[in-house]
């Protein structure tokens, strides 16, 4: 008799999710689905609000990556005002985004994912968390917390709040970095760099014994998308959009976010509130693409900071070229933290970051604007239509996590097929399925744009639809 295994809730990710694994009569995995079960409605309830409020409102989609929405929203507002922001403002926005990438990736690695690598997928679930990590390696745990604090504190120095800082605005930013903040950042940079380099060394050391995970955790060909700079360098804020395939071929380049509807379609399935973006020229679902750290490292020609670029070269060697295993997201995150730290080292010495010329003023000059930025999890689009008074008429948000939806589903299916071969499902196997999702570091609060607590529910469903078994976490 067929069964469906359902993992509900998925643990150690942000947001609510459920995974259903469908077994055939032979007890082998037939299919798997990653369902997101919550809905929020930001795109709708923003209608009627002044455009000036959008940065503050959309930042509150999420308490995890508010900076990403703040910056994408501000860039959208820049287009509606038709202004070029002062150079100092761009550098400050970049610094905030780099801090955001640092803190988010640090939490993903040290708190959410490393318990699996370091304690083992089959270890006791009660201790397979940050407390277990502390017991195993207190220095690593402590340094990881301080690395995240570094990123969060830079955000606070710039925006006066760590979360939902109302600092990036259409036209620029509200204030420069203070000299006190600059001194603090300089003081903490060496430690942050050392922590990152140690984490990269640790992960590379683990890779040799994680070959099964590398092969089974979402390794498949797909397109990759993200921003690159004018010379093809790694980008996180500006530049242009690029699609590349798993062979390293550039499929589409020099794309503008203004034309996103020409190359990104959004499909809907009736079993999830998360939309399914795809590369339009290839149709749905063949147009599957991945975004985020793995994609950004795959599509760029190089990273324009020396230590991170050196790590990128080794990353590509270990991957055998383009990294197609979703497990490599963890590795990519660490390299991005290093790139971020190196860039912050440069920016903190730039006199523009303390300049008072940080905002261009203008009125409504365009009735539509599209802004793009790289959030830690991937490319983020904000699209607003406004009236003559700047009141929002329509909003569309394409969130990073949503763009990985097809890939997350494929990853879950692949892992389930590799590890589940009978009706008895040990806890460690379920954790591997969850870990596949965790590799993407999804933010489901943003992507549905959903609110609520975060459980993961697993259901085991027979071919006739009978729920044979269920498992819950949280």
């Amino acid at each position, binding site marked *: 008799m067929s069964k469906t295994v359902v993992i509900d809730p998925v643990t150690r990710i*942000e947001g609510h999710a459920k995974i259903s694994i469908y077994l055939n009569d032979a007890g082998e995995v037939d299919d798997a689905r990653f369902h997101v079960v919550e809905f929020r409605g930001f795109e709708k309830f923003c209608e009627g609000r002044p455009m000036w409020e959008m940065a503050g409102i959309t930042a509150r989609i999420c308490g995890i990556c508010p900076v990403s929405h703040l910056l994408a929203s501000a860039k959208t507002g820049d287009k509606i005002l038709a202004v070029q922001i002062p150079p100092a403002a761009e550098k400050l926005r970049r610094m905030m985004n780099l801090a955001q990438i640092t803190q988010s990736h640090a939490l993903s690695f040290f708190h959410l994912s490393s318990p699996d690598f370091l304690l083992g997928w089959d270890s006791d679930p*009660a201790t397979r968390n940050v*407390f277990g990590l502390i017991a195993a390696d207190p220095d690593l745990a402590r340094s990881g*917390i301080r690395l995240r604090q570094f990123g969060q504190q830079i955000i606070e120095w710039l925006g006066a709040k760590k979360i939902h800082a109302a600092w990036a605005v259409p036209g620029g930013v509200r204030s420069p970095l203070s000299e006190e903040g600059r001194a603090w950042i300089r003081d903490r940079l060496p430690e942050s760099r050392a922590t990152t380099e140690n984490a990269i060394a640790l992960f590379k050391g683990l890779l040799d014994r994680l070959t099964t995970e590398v092969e089974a955790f979402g390794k498949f060909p797909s397109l990759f998308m993200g921003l690159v700079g004018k010379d093809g360098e790694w980008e996180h804020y500006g530049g242009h959009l690029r699609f590349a395939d798993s062979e390293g071929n550039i499929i589409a380049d020099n794309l503008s976010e203004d034309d996103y509807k020409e190359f990104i379609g959004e499909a809907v399935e009736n079993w999830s509130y998360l939309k399914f973006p795809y590369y339009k020229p290839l149709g749905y679902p063949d147009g599957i693409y991945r975004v985020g750290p793995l994609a950004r490292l795959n599509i760029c020609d190089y990273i324009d900071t020396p230590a991170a670029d050196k790590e990128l070269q080794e990353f590509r060697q270990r991957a055998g070229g383009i990294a197609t295993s979703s497990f490599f997201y963890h590795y990519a995150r660490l390299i991005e933290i290093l790139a971020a730290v190196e860039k912050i080292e440069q920016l903190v010495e730039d006199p523009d970051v303390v300049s008072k010329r940080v905002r261009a003023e203008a009125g409504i000059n365009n009735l539509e604007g599209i802004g793009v930025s790289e959030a830690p999890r991937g490319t983020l689009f904000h699209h607003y239509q406004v009236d003559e008074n700047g009141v929002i008429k329509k909003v569309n948000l394409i969130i990073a996590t949503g763009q990985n939806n097809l890939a997350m589903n494929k990853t879950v299916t692949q892992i389930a097929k590799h590890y589940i071969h009978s009706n008895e499902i040990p806890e460690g196997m379920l954790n591997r399925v969850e870990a596949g999702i965790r590799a993407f570091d999804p933010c489901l609060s943003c992507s549905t744009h959903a609110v609520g607590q975060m459980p993961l529910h697993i259901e085991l469903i027979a071919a006739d639809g009978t729920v044979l078994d269920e498992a819950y976490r949280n």
Partner: protein
Amino acid sequence: MNCNLSATLQTLNKSFVVVGYGNDLRSDDAIGPCVAKAVEAWGVPNVNSLAFHQLTPELVETIKDTYGAIFVDACRSPEVKEVQVLAIEPDELGKVMTHHTDPRSLLALSQTLYGYYPRAWLVKVPAVNFELGDRLSSVAEQGISDALDEIDYLLRQHTHQHEV
């Protein structure tokens, strides 16, 4: 809040942190940040007052250096009918640390990482409305006022105990 408390805290070398947390766009969930901002306005030098959307693991770096930590949060009424001040202890079986955590887990993290955790209290303030909005209910406003009295009393009590 007057200068005497400030002087006493400095003399005793006791520092406190007040951490008020909640979403200020969800009506009464703003109680925690409102209380924290009010305490900040007292301007007591050895009392650091912080307002957050949510508690995060790196807060351990702040609480580990304090004598006392007072957490303030909105709690749904009628389960909580009036302000409650609860002494709390570490509990590492609380929330698994993701992007947000809870007071007891933070204390556990401090104990585990640094071998120390501050004396800690959770001030639960009754709240009735958690819908989207930026206004406080009358229940919340009264609760904030009561919570501030409780925090003032708590700070004085600890200086008085030391003197005794």
